[in-house]
């Protein structure tokens, strides 16, 4: 513990909750045990995470990315050893007593969540349309031809939207059938996804049999679409409802 300096005004940043795994996922992460569950926490400066100063911190993209990646990294290391129930970003306690009280008070629901997550992983699936969308109305000879072209273009867009919605619906249905649970996430813009192709599907699944899930995924790939599989993730999307709201 001496290797990592503890700030004078240190609070406790809680990453997530594990069961009986004794290992620290990182040198500066402590395992705070309360009966059958344990919190994974780091000492952090309360000034750095102060609520009043936080908006500015969050506006610092470099700070935010560093902290978010660190949060994810701790949980991924824990996940490599056993199930983990992840906390939301920036869950910081002023003192250890309160953190331990949370663990003790919610031990039952945390334990059953960990039991449910045993042997299961969260996998993300995104689908991108590789086929080009209908082209814009080109140069038209007359006003009437232009309007007609616009009308057809609008209709084609509408049909494309419906087709893609049907594909997404079918994909989700198939993937849920090969998983324990599944949720749909917001579609990401091109800037976010970093791909030229348009995202038409973004889902996340709690999976116990990965081979079966990947088979279902391979079978479900429609013509003209690329699939991207991500994970395993800490099961952010499969935290019990009663823990996922204040």
């Amino acid at each position, binding site marked *: 513990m001496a290797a990592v300096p503890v700030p004078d005004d240190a609070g406790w940043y809680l990453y997530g909750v594990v069961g009986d795994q004794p290992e620290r996922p990182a040198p500066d992460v402590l395992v705070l045990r309360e009966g059958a569950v344990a919190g994974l926490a780091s000492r952090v400066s309360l000034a750095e995470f102060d609520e009043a100063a936080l908006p500015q911190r969050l*506006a610092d993209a470099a700070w935010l990315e560093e902290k978010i990646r660190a949060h994810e990294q701790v949980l991924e290391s824990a996940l490599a050893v056993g199930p983990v129930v992840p906390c939301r970003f920036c869950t910081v306690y002023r003192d250890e007593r309160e953190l331990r009280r949370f663990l003790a008070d919610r031990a039952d629901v945390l334990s059953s969540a960990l039991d449910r997550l045993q042997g299961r992983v969260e996998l993300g699936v995104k689908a991108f349309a590789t086929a080009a969308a209908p082209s814009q109305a080109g140069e038209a000879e007359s006003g009437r031809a232009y309007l007609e072209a616009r009308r057809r273009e609008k209709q084609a867009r509408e049909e494309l939207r419906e087709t893609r919605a049907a594909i997404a619906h079918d994909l989700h249905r198939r993937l849920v059938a090969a998983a324990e649970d599944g949720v749909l996430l917001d579609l990401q813009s091109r800037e976010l996804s970093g791909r030229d192709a348009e995202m038409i599907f973004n889902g996340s699944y709690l999976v116990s049999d990965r081979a079966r899930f990947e088979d279902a995924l391979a079978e479900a790939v429609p013509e003209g679409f690329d699939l991207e599989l991500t994970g395993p993730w800490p099961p952010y999307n499969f935290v019990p409802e009663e823990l996922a709201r204040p």
Partner: protein
Amino acid sequence: MSSRDLDSYGHGSHPAQLADVLERVLDKGIVIAGDIQINLLDIELLTVKIRLLIASADKAREMGIDWWQNDPFLSGSNGQGQLEDRLRKLEEKAGLPTTSEEE
């Protein structure tokens, strides 16, 4: 198509895309109420997320968008027009009639 053809990555060799991490870490997971230092409300995180997800910082700079500097929530300044804009967006998110519609 076999599962080998899937465009996939594990976290070991490639870092996950920031957008994928953000959409999970920022508004999913255990939410604890009570005596903790920071208890950001859903709506505040949502706002941050919306701003963030407009573009990564580099992309935003490339595009000349200093969205964090013009945001009253993020910059701490008190731009009335932007506050209204933010309110309208949140109202839309919540499925409420928006301020602009009433005007």
